[in-house]
């Protein structure tokens, strides 16, 4: 590697005096200060709301706009009768590199649909947000467009989303009563879901 000599610029007389340079610096900071002071005051009086006084986004109250292709928390899309579009084909479970999707398919009463998911669980603690499940789905049944970013929980258990939370993005655990309208296992088994995370057999590996 050749050595490149960097020519340092000689300071001019005015720059060496230092004080003019301090005044230049003060000019910059003061411009920002008084401009923002004026704008904040105007905002308090309800004027000039369209000119931002700061670049701050007050996070929980304000949120940045997301890109349309941004991958946020998953949701299961619904048919017109509010039953899930998912046909239990297991493609997403198969393609998932993190193996965080668990599906238990069941027989659908409508012979044209064949199957529906009795369980559809995603462990967000394991999900890598690659979006392959969305890419692979033949029915457009899973999407990552809820815009939910603040996925925090006090336990690993709470990071595991079941079909209720996936179908209704606003739902959060614990879900007290099941109001899903399609022939759902909750209704047919006296409000109880069959099996738990422990009893669900993993399709591959573990």
């Amino acid at each position, binding site marked *: 590697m050749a050595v490149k000599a960097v020519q340092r610029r000689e300071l001019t007389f005015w720059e060496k005096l230092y004080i003019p340079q*301090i005044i230049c*610096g*003060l000019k910059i*900071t*003061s411009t*920002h200060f008084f401009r923002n002071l004026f704008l904040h005051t105007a905002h308090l009086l309800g004027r000039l709301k369209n000119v931002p*006084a*700061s670049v*701050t986004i*007050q996070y929980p109250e304000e949120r940045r706009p997301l890109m349309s292709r941004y991958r946020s928390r998953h949701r299961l899309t619904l048919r017109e009768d509010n039953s899930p579009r998912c046909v239990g084909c297991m493609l997403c479970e198969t393609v998932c590199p993190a193996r965080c999707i668990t599906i238990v398919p069941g027989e659908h009463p409508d012979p044209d649909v064949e199957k529906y998911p009795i369980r559809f669980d995603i462990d967000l603690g394991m999900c890598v947000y690659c979006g392959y499940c969305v890419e692979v789905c033949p029915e457009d049944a899973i999407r990552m467009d809820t815009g939910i970013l603040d996925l925090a929980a006090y336990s690993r258990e709470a990071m595991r989303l079941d079909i209720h939370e996936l179908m209704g993005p606003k739902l959060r655990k614990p879900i007290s009563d099941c109001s899903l309208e399609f022939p759902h296992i909750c209704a047919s088994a006296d409000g109880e879901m069959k099996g738990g995370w422990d009893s669900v057999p993993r399709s591959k590996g573990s």
Partner: protein
Amino acid sequence: MVEILLIKLVVAGLVFAAVLNLAGFHTWVERKQSALIQDRIGANRAPIFGFTMLGMFHGVADVLKMFTKEDIVPDRADKVLHTIAPFFSVFFALVAFAAIPFGPPLHLGDRVIDLQVAKIDAALLYVFAMLSLGVYGVILAGFASRNNYAIMGGLRATAQMISYEIAIGISLIGVIMVYGTMDLAELVRAQGQLLGGWVPFWGIFAQPVGFIVFVTAALAETKRLPFDLPEGESEIIGYFVEYSGMKFGMFFLTDFLETIVVASLATTLFFGGWQVPYLTEDGFLFPWGGQLPVQNWVYVLLGVASFSIKGLIFCFLFMQLRWTLPRFRYDQLMNLGWKGLFPIAVINVVVTAFVLAFLGGSS
């Protein structure tokens, strides 16, 4: 006698309350001013009954937090000195305000009240003695902590403050020569004259070079940002590493107090203290012949307001400088002190002496 004592106590209490509140207010100003300079919003969350008052309650929250924090004294530290050091810092910074006149004499009945806590003939010397003693708090904090980093910070602080003390002292010799007094009250009164009938005879017009040297060196005395090598909160470790809770808070408070001391000193020495241009004890006497008589209490009120406004402008300026300039390197700091400010101050004294001798001298 008791009356005099009571009056002095009231005046001292007023100064004490004003200064401490202003120092507390500085924490809010620092947060908000830096935020505005950097296009941010700044602290705005702490509420009392749902009101946030533009984040003003964060200072209260800070103080509550600091008082309730555990006070840790390192095992091998010198317990007595470790405890006493922050008190030293705050004490000397507060005591310095005693000699600063913040208003013209108030006539109450036939009693004349000096708006100055202590009337000292050599008030200037007293203020600087107190400011210099402040370095004891710093070096003791570094020494008593038994922490190598702390003692290095203390040494940096001592070297810096002693170097800049000399520049400050010499820069003020010019002022003393021009006005011929070390009594701050007298010095402010002398600045009430007019220069050529139009310009007030303030220190800034008589001693512009002395003013620049004074402000630079005084900023170094306060240990605030362009000169904050003793503490270097963000990366290098300063003399108060081993302090926690309110003891740390006291060092923090000292910084703000010293800023206010320096701001009031700059006001007193170079901007006419409580003088309002063209305002004399009888009222406004404008150079174009106008006249507006004012009563004594209005005169005093205007004087105190003038002093406060000038002081606050200086506080603002120091804060603005603190968020504008980056920190000096240590060799640059020493170079500026010894090779820059010191010779300039000396030359300033010599030139002032020649000019005074040429003009016949004012004293």
